[in-house]
């Protein structure tokens, strides 16, 4: 019997519920997938082999578990350093730093625009002294660190390199990731200083510099996470992320770098939303599409250039303030999709984070969720256990095909930088977000505890709150830092940053000197504002 015969006879007779069978991204799915739908085995391949659909390494989690990397940052550097040590003591295997909004926008804590926001959504970081305190007693040669920072990534990396020097750790031994994905800032996360073109120049400076001097570092983490959080569909997340990746590769090639010198250090960051099969398919399609693009479009030869390695995080936007314990279940399902999708590194969200900063207890449950998946569930015993599932392979094919269509459209607009300037991805995301909200309100999409199965409940009080005194303390500290440094030395170093920004010299070496001379995040950002200009939100709707 063919699939069509089965659908028209057996399936129709058995009937179905009167709902729209679609993913959270509203991709309509078929009742059944068979070998008529799925890719031939050849295009799926084997784990560790081109096109890496089934994973980037042959032995996957039998060889090495993913890195359990919980994102943390609040208050002062000392507050966050304490949380880092707490997480490491409880078995976390990598660090991940959240910076506050002033740091992410290039303002020191003592700037008027920082009022009310110092240390609130991340750790405050204005000076080398702050970075030193953040990583106090953290052995940087052993622990890999991720830093979520973009338009001020160059300064943060310079500070991290300076702290490594102080700890006696050579740069060649430093492993970690700096997000530094400016294109997705314009698309989704929206923390910026200067317009796209000069922002991209700084990113390429960092890619070039790290390839030569910090070879184990990932100088950019090409991120779909924020695109999805801003309301995109899964296909948009996949397509815009890979289109951003294409733009970085093209910019680095235009600088004269050879593809295989930098491509192996590009890494990716995806969202893990509620729809299990869609998410698994997205991650598998991402690997296959990137490998194919790198080989066929950019002529990469080194197998490491073809491997899309990824961090993933469960979807913050999927969590609910209502009945927050239910979030543990959502995070578990999402994390399982990540593991079965083959991630290299994972953050699991805390159940209480729609209300406030995560409490220690909630962070512990989130970390334990990963440990239970890794060490109790058994899913790590088999490499890519979902490979060969007709549904998973068919959905993987479809995600890849639809993402390719988007990438072609973006190529047609002149590439991602031009597309961003025209507001294309921003509008696509705003539209998808609005459509989803309407579906929620009509009850076509269900959120348990919110638009179905709601109960009257009292919200618990905020458990972890950053006191307002933190801001005052940090302002004093930054002012003291500026008073006590050698002013002439700092001014001279900042002038060298300005000269490098105005010319074509790589910014990173002068930035390392500048932060050592006491220059702050805000001061370097002011140079960027002066030389590169200030980007204003075009507010695409």
């Amino acid at each position, binding site marked *: 019997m063919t699939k069509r015969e089965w659908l028209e006879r057996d399936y129709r007779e058995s009937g179905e519920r009167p709902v729209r069978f679609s993913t959270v991204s509203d991709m309509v799915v078929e009742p059944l997938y068979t070998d008529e739908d799925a890719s031939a085995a050849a295009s799926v391949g084997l784990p560790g082999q081109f096109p890496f659909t089934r994973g980037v390494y042959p032995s996957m989690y039998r060889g090495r578990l993913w890195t359990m990397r919980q994102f943390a940052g609040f208050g002062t550097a000392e507050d966050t350093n304490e949380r880092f040590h707490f997480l490491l003591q409880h078995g976390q295997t990598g660090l991940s730093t959240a910076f506050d*909004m002033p740091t992410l926008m290039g303002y020191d804590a003592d700037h008027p625009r920082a*009022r*009310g926001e110092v240390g*609130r959504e991340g750790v405050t970081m204005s000076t080398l002294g702050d970075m030193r305190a953040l990583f106090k007693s953290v052995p940087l040669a052993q622990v890999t660190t991720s830093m979520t920072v973009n338009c001020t990534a160059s300064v943060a990396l310079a500070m991290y390199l300076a702290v490594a020097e102080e700890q006696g750790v050579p740069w060649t031994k430093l492993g970690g990731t700096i997000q530094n994905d400016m294109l997705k800032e314009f698309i989704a996360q*929206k923390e910026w200083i200067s317009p796209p073109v000069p922002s991209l120049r700084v990113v390429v400076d960092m890619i070039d510099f790290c390839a030569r001097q910090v070879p184990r570092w990932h100088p950019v983490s090409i991120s779909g996470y924020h695109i999805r959080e801003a309301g995109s569909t899964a296909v948009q997340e996949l397509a815009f992320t890979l289109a951003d990746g294409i733009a970085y590769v093209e910019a680095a090639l235009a600088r004269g770098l050879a593809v295989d010198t930098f491509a192996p250090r590009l890494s990716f960051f995806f969202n893990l939303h509620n729809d299990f099969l869609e998410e698994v398919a997205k991650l598998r399609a991402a690997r296959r599409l990137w490998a194919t693009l790198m080989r066929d479009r950019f002529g990469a030869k080194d197998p490491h250039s073809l491997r899309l390695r990824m961090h993933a995080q469960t979807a913050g936007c999927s969590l609910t303030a209502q009945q927050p314990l239910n979030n543990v279940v959502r995070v578990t399902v999402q994390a399982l999709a990540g593991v079965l999708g083959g991630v290299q590194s994972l953050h699991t969200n805390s159940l209480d984070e729609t209300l406030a900063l995560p409490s220690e207890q909630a962070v512990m449950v989130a970390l334990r969720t990963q440990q239970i998946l890794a060490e109790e569930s058994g899913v790590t015993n088999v490499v890519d256990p979902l490979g060969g599932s007709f549904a998973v392979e068919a959905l993987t094919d479809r995600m890849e095909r639809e993402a390719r269509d988007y990438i072609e459209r973006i190529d047609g607009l002149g590439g991602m930088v031009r597309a961003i300037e025209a507001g294309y991805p921003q509008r696509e995301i705003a539209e998808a977000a609005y459509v989803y909200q309407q579906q*929620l309100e009509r009850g076509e999409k269900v959120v348990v505890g919110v638009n179905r199965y709601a109960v009257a409940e009292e*919200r618990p*009080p905020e458990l972890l709150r950053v006191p307002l005194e933190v801001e005052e303390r940090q302002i004093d500290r930054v002012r003291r830092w500026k008073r006590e440094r050698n002013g002439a030395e700092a001014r001279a170093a900042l002038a060298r940053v300005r000269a490098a920004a105005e010319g074509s010299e790589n910014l990173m070496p002068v930035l390392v000197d500048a932060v050592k001379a006491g220059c702050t995040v805000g001061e370097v950002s002011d140079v960027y504002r002066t030389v590169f200009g200030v980007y204003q*939100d075009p507010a695409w*709707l």
Partner: protein
Amino acid sequence: MAVSGRPLRILVAKPGLDGHDRGAKIIVRALRDAGFEVIYTGLHQTPEMIAEAAIQEDVDAVGLSILSGAHLTLFPAVIDELKRRGGGDITIFGGGIVPDEDQPALAGAGVAKVFTPGATIQDVVDWVRGNVRPRA
């Protein structure tokens, strides 16, 4: 819909340094679809910029979207700046991640309503219809 026969004019504003504009953009579209005249400031606005825009655009209400945790600083700052410019009668409402225990302080500062996670766009539209009046 408005008593005077003209549509209500609403400024949707995004104060603070964070880039979370998903909610603000949805509200802008929903209020427009409901027939209001809506102006959106875009991201990263200071309280001064927001108050200035509210006066220049002659709006009846300002809706602030705040997800930075700085609501206790930013709501009162916008209200002060509005008063300084003769806009003390403009209705102020907002939405974002605001803990329940902060609601009394915001109400005391003159914030008419704060929508928190789980509120629907219909809730917001209905509230604006029922509570915002055209300025004289």
